[in-house]
């Protein structure tokens, strides 16, 4: 608790210790001069003025959205893909806490942090898209549209954000050295995990269920009464894959923090994850066909949309699924990583297919995002990465804090 007593004099020590990675300010600033930061700064230089335009001149000034296409890139990518890719948090938390798969322990914290930041920036993205973002709390406190799937999504994302924050709190308290509070929040772990899984099940599927109300707008190959189950299953696949992708990137970017890890063991864990991911993806693949059979949509396969559908389902579901199986079979973490990136691309493709590429397929014209929409999306992703890096560099995310050994 030494660092929590900070009379004026120790403030600067605290700042240096906690925020500046133990370096004097000048030296710390010097470490920031990296190519990555230069690119990030450039992106922010473009993104922030656009943010200003968006909130002072409106959605029309920044996007190509219109009355036929009320949802675009910000919903299709920032929200739908963001939530699906952030599913790793609940997957890992339940693997470790509920199924006691200890070998995933080291992956859990980064997954929860990604989950938390993922959702946080989903909400940020949503604020760009909403006409009156300051009314975001309305469905919680002012007026309840209980017949709406969106109502469910709103509540659950809000609650889940809180749950993930709680789940991540131990890391924050370890960073701050607040032992006792940390001890309290740890007691909530199991409850939070169970609650998190329930919330995730419901809102991951609810994001798909949103489109149940657009049977004439979503293309028949993608519209299905199974869409909630499809979204949920694919979110698990996306979550697991993101965990692999993340571990891959972490080992490149933060290798100093993970140097204590035995690379072979890490590879072993990746292969273990591949096995689960392969099974989940295969289930998803089967569900895709069951959905098609259930609605009897076979004839659509022989259209150009059908070809595109096959690209998604064969090329980006079955493909990575087989890759995962191979990875597990031949014990190759390298193949597992390829499969993971492949899966992530496939899930992104699916969400964009449902919400943008095939949406309004009967309309004579298509929506194409404006460059400013892309710029905002890129800015949000960059902000997410920067925040992630900031926290990982300071808090015990990728390593176990020496003073706080693993306990159950």
């Amino acid at each position, binding site marked *: 608790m030494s660092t929590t007593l900070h009379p004026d004099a120790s403030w600067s020590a605290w700042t240096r210790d906690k925020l500046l990675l133990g370096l004097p300010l000048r030296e710390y600033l010097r470490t920031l001069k990296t190519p990555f930061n230069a690119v990030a700064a450039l992106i922010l230089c473009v993104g922030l003025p656009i943010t200003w335009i968006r909130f002072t001149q409106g959605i029309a000034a920044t996007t190509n959205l219109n009355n036929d296409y009320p949802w675009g890139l910000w919903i299709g990518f920032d929200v739908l893909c963001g939530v699906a890719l952030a599913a790793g948090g609940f997957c890992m938390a339940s693997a470790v806490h509920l*199924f006691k798969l200890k070998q995933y322990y080291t992956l859990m914290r980064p997954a929860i942090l990604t989950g938390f930041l993922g959702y946080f920036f989903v909400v940020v993205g949503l604020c760009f898209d909403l006409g009156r973002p300051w009314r975001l709390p309305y469905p919680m406190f002012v007026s309840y549209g209980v017949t709406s799937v*969106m109502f469910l*999504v709103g509540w659950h994302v809000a609650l889940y954000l809180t749950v993930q924050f709680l789940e991540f709190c131990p890391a924050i308290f370890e960073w701050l050295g607040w032992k006792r509070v940390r001890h309290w929040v740890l007691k909530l772990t199991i409850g939070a995990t169970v609650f998190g899984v329930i919330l995730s099940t419901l809102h991951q599927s609810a994001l798909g269920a949103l489109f149940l109300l657009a049977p004439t707008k979503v293309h028949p190959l993608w519209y299905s009464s199974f869409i909630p189950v499809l979204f949920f299953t694919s979110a698990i696949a996306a979550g697991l894959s993101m965990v692999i992708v993340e571990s891959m990137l972490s080992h490149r970017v933060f290798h100093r923090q993970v140097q204590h890890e035995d690379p072979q063991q890490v590879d072993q864990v990746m292969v273990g994850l591949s096995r689960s991911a392969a099974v989940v993806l295969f289930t998803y693949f089967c569900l895709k066909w069951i959905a098609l059979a259930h609605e009897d949509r076979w004839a659509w396969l022989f259209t150009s949309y059908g070809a595109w559908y096959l690209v998604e389902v064969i090329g980006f579901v079955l493909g990575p699924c087989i890759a995962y199986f191979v990875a597990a079979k031949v014990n190759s973490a390298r193949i597992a990583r390829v499969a993971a990136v492949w899966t992530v691309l496939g899930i992104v493709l699916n969400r964009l297919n449902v919400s943008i590429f095939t949406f309004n397929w009967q309309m004579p014209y298509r929506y194409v995002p404006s460059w400013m929409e892309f710029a905002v999306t890129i800015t949000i992703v960059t902000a997410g990465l920067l925040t992630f890096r900031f926290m990982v560099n300071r808090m015990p995310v990728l390593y176990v804090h020496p003073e706080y050994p693993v*306990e159950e």
Partner: protein
Amino acid sequence: MAVSRRGFLKAACATGVVGVGATAARPAEAAQVKRPWMGMLTDLSLCVGCRKCEYACNKANALSDDALETYDDKSVFEQTRRTDADRFTVVNRFDREGQPPVFVKRQCMHCIEPACASACLVAAFKKSDEGPVIYDESLCIGCRYCMVACPFGMPAFEYSKPFTPRVTKCSMCIERLRDGEQPACACVCPEEAITFGPREELLTLAHDKIREHPDRYVDHVYGETEAGGTNWMYISPVPFGDLGFPTDIGTKPYPELTKGFLSSVPLVLTLWPMLLMGAYAFNNARGPELAGAPVNTHEEGGQ
């Protein structure tokens, strides 16, 4: 009213709840039995494309000050227009070979069970007691899910307003109705192509017209069953599919589409905790040593 009561009884019998039918029926049906819902019937065989309804609508909703003469401009018909933030109704022209064109006035259909209302997470859209589907700007957060949901593509959004963007659509002049007046467009139409009245009466009128003049109309009242039925209905000399009306929306009320999903929510809420806690208890009892070999080299400090 006869039609509705018969339909209602049929539904009640089918579910075996005749005795408690009044309470068990969907609220929309119950309301329909209670009081006559107002509606509109547009007879497309009578519309001459004068666009006076557009003028009256824009005036009534304070959307435009343009003089009546400006609506004589026929060049607007070169394109098919849709409803927009500053026009709640539009008249489009559909040319036919060797025959006079058909003019189609479009606006919100005022669905009996509106998709927009079932989509809205803050209940900003509501089916009013009078029949029109109305919007409360003070609640709307601007998510535009209502626009995604509307099968007729009618609501529009004020994209260019940064601070107070609203969803806009026809309200069937609800204020005028409450003052005992008719909707502005119905009042102004010189050809009496738009008839205002209780929905059931309009439905009877529509079917009578079709029966009396089978040569003048296709045998279809658009809005009788579309998306579960709408309060605004149409009869037409040509198939509705040729006039830009969506014909693939089915007869199921839209709220039904998400009902199955929403009713599975309590199931997940009760079953999941049980299963998950069960899994936890089971795995916990097995002891940490058995459940997956601990692999971390840096865990040695652990208990």
